[in-house]
């Protein structure tokens, strides 16, 4: 078996790389795929927290590289889904503890056993980024409809295009506020796609459920009622090659404001009478 190695990257920090990683990984595993996630953000690990696995980590990627354990021993199984594993970053070491070659070797070994290897990339464009990208052949660039995030995404896309190993990259637009896009107070998905001239793999709406699910260490894709969870499940479907239409959040927002307006008028009339 030869699985796919996908790096999830963004340039700018705080746009939702790790959240995206946890949710896409969980969604793919729910769909029956064997998935392993690698946290390469040495010294600033967080993927374990989002998955609620922080208390189960014994060995990290640095222990594997420095041969204190076997690769298999360092893989932490998810609480709910046996298809899902995590290779955690070391919290006490810095970016120099693992090299590009070592990461590539780990990715190559893992893709023999798993359908998907998702690499969580640190923010920035320095060595940490170079390491994370080393073993991947596909990339997902996470951005938000804000100027700074789009600018950094453009930089990352330039760097990815220069890498021969990266065969394709897709754009994931996170924290999308359809009501603000509809009122032209924020860039729309079309604006971002046009500026970056990249193909979209998903649009994730801004959702307070992300915060509460992070608090609980449970990815939001497991919540059937969450809009962000639904959007992440769609992204996983598209990764697996299924053609799922994009949810038109603008239209949904317009409809819901129309309904609200209708009812508020109705209520006002009721009061007047």
């Amino acid at each position: 078996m030869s699985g796919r190695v996908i790096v999830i990257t963004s340039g700018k920090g705080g746009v939702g790389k790790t959240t995206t990683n946890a949710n896409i990984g969980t969604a793919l595993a729910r769909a029956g795929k064997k998935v392993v996630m690698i946290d390469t953000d040495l010294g600033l690990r967080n993927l374990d927290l989002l998955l609620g696995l922080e208390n189960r980590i014994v060995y990290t990627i640095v222990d594997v590289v420095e041969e204190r354990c076997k690769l298999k021993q360092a893989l932490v199984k998810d609480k709910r889904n046996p298809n899902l594993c995590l290779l955690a970053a070391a919290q006490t070491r810095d970016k120099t503890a693992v090299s590009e070659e070592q990461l590539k070797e780990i990715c190559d070994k893992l893709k023999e056993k798993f359908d998907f290897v998702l690499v969580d990339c640190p923010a920035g464009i320095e060595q940490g980024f170079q390491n994370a990208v080393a073993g991947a052949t596909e990339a997902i660039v996470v951005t938000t409809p804000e100027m700074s995030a789009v600018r950094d995404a453009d930089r990352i896309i330039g760097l990815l295009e220069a890498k021969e190993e990266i065969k394709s990259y897709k754009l994931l637009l996170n924290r999308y506020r359809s009501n603000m896009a509809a009122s032209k107070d924020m860039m729309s998905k079309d604006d971002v796609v046009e500026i970056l001239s990249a193909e979209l793999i998903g649009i994730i709406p801004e959702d307070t459920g992300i915060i509460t699910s992070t608090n609980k260490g449970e990815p939001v894709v497991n919540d059937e009622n969450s809009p962000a969870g639904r959007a992440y499940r769609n992204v996983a479907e598209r990764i697996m090659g299924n053609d799922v239409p994009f949810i038109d959040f603008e239209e949904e927002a317009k409809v819901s404001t129309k309904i609200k307006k209708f009812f508020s008028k109705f209520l006002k009339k009721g009061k007047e009478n």
Partner: protein
Amino acid sequence: MSENIFTELYNKILGLFGQAAPKEDSKDVAVNRLRVVLMQDRTNLTPELLQRMRKELIELLSKYVEMDKEALELNFEQEGEQMALMLSIPVVRAKDEEEIEAAIKAEEEAKAAAEDSNSDDDDELDDDLDDEEDDDFDDDDLEDEEVEDSENDSEEVIEEQVDPVEEEKPENKKDKE
């Protein structure tokens, strides 16, 4: 300044009739600013290189017109799909024929002298040109003349687009001024 007051007044009057100039949405501002920034990011032109380009353009154009060097603007702009480099130069005074000829002649002489001294050393040509620029540019006779005449307020603006593919769009220039 006075122009601004007039446009403001004009907009206010229009506003009274409920036809104020259409308000630009904040997302359009963001999109336009981003486009300009990304164009610069993608060109690999560092601020130093832009500064150098600016200096070289001034040097080149000073032979033909006398301009307000401080007010010279060099910007990237988006025109449809095409990226354009916009150069805006306030002209202080047109030069007369003799001045232009003298400037061209001086330049040719300098070039010939440089070629002579470098004829057997091609590798260092670039470096030498750099040095020449630094030494000669600032105390160039053209520059001195302009300082004297800078009070001349009959300014006329020449706009030149360096990008050869693009056509000039006069409306844009007026907005900028």
